[in-house]
């Protein structure tokens, strides 16, 4: 529970920082992503820091039964830091090392945020919440379309904290078993 509270506080802290910069709460970009443990397709909105060094996204993810074995609905909050930035002519920016941390909430009866009182305290962890990490790169291009100031394509290697922990504990787990590729796009307003 402490981890969840700390995560929420950090998220709120960043959100409040962005909110001060964007008093109307109007998001800086819309985002859509394929795969990466947060949905078959996930879409949402987010904010970019003034120095363009970090972003924060809020996404809704959907997994149809044909892709995941059953329908899954998820919400994700994600913070991304752009460690390295290259700007080129013609409006291109290249970010070769993006690091993200996200918290994923799965909605539905099988997934528990709190357990019933019959269970002793901390008998189980909350199974609706898992965290994850990713490393990736992106390329951003400024453009002059009417409602769009720039667009960005990104690719990531994503894992879940639970898998990383088990990978650390067991030599026999293959690295490919704990990762997913993900691709996505952001459209800046």
């Amino acid at each position, binding site marked *: 529970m402490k981890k969840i509270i700390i995560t929420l506080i950090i998220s709120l802290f960043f959100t409040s920082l962005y909110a001060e910069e964007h008093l109307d709460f109007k998001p800086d970009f819309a985002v*859509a992503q394929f795969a990466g443990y947060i949905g078959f397709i996930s879409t949402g909105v987010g904010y970019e820091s003034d120095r363009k060094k970090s972003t924060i996204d809020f996404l809704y993810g959907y997994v149809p039964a044909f892709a995941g074995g059953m329908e899954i609905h998820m919400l994700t909050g994600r913070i991304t830091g752009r460690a390295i930035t290259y700007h080129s002519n013609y409006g291109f920016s290249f970010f070769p090392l993006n690091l993200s941390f996200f918290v994923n909430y799965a909605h539905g009866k099988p997934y528990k945020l709190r357990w019933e009182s*019959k269970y002793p305290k901390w008998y189980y962890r909350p199974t609706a919440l898992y965290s994850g990490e990713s490393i990736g790169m992106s390329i951003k291009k400024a453009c002059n379309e009417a409602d769009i100031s720039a667009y960005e394509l990104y690719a990531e290697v994503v894992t879940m904290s639970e898998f990383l922990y088990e990978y650390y504990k067991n030599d026999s787990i293959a690295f490919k078993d704990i990762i997913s590729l993900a691709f996505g796009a952001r459209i800046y307003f």
Partner: protein
Amino acid sequence: MSNLKKYILSFFLILSGCESDYFKYSIHETDSQYDGQNYNIKNAAIIEQSCNNPSEDFTFAVVTDSHSAYDKLGKAVDLINGNPEVKFVFHLGDFTETGLLFQYEQTIKKLQNLKVPFLTVIGNHDTLGNGFDIFRDIFGTTDFSFTCNGVFFFVGNNNNWESPIGDVGYVKDALTQHQSERYRIIVAHIPMDDDDRFSNEMRQGYKNLCEDYNIALSLHGHRHRHQYVANFTSKTAMLVADAIIYNTYYLIHVKSTGIEYEIIPF
């Protein structure tokens, strides 16, 4: 639609056609490469076919509560493979930490290396999230029975807090039909003397069932510590196996003189 929007739409349409192990959509996915294997049903049938001498002594191995210690499970599998006496292996449950497909598949990768058939009991941790559905998709059933060399095994799901459990009438019917076997063994994850989970009435009801149906052994995991109660009832011994995370597995020797257990540390 602008060219930019067309490009982005095309990008996602192409990706959505990709089928690869490298794209995963949720930690809660249930679609497994092992779906439909029905290991419990298939392996119980294999055991029945190969162990059909009602008076022959035999040995089976027991591992339990591996949770996410896949390497330790793998080590036990290697050791069991080196013992030609072992006819089959029981995993008594909790082979996942939170019932995730990833954890199921890591466990199956280890159990598949066994040279003898394996059977799995669903543990309380294995039911979490979508675990109950994953278990049934892969192993076929949580409740089943089989006979090996004149010993009747009834395997059941008794995780009463986490999932629906079977009708006791079904258990009694199965036991009634196998009173002529030399022993009867009940296998379930949670020890039936657990006073947190089971009311006085349930615990006494189970003891009565053991008495009435001549159960020789009540075999369980869950507690992460070894416990043997020779006189659980006047006819029944109860064995609670220690967790494999503490580097232990068991051999159960079924003999004409009785059922004996052996703890194998590694």
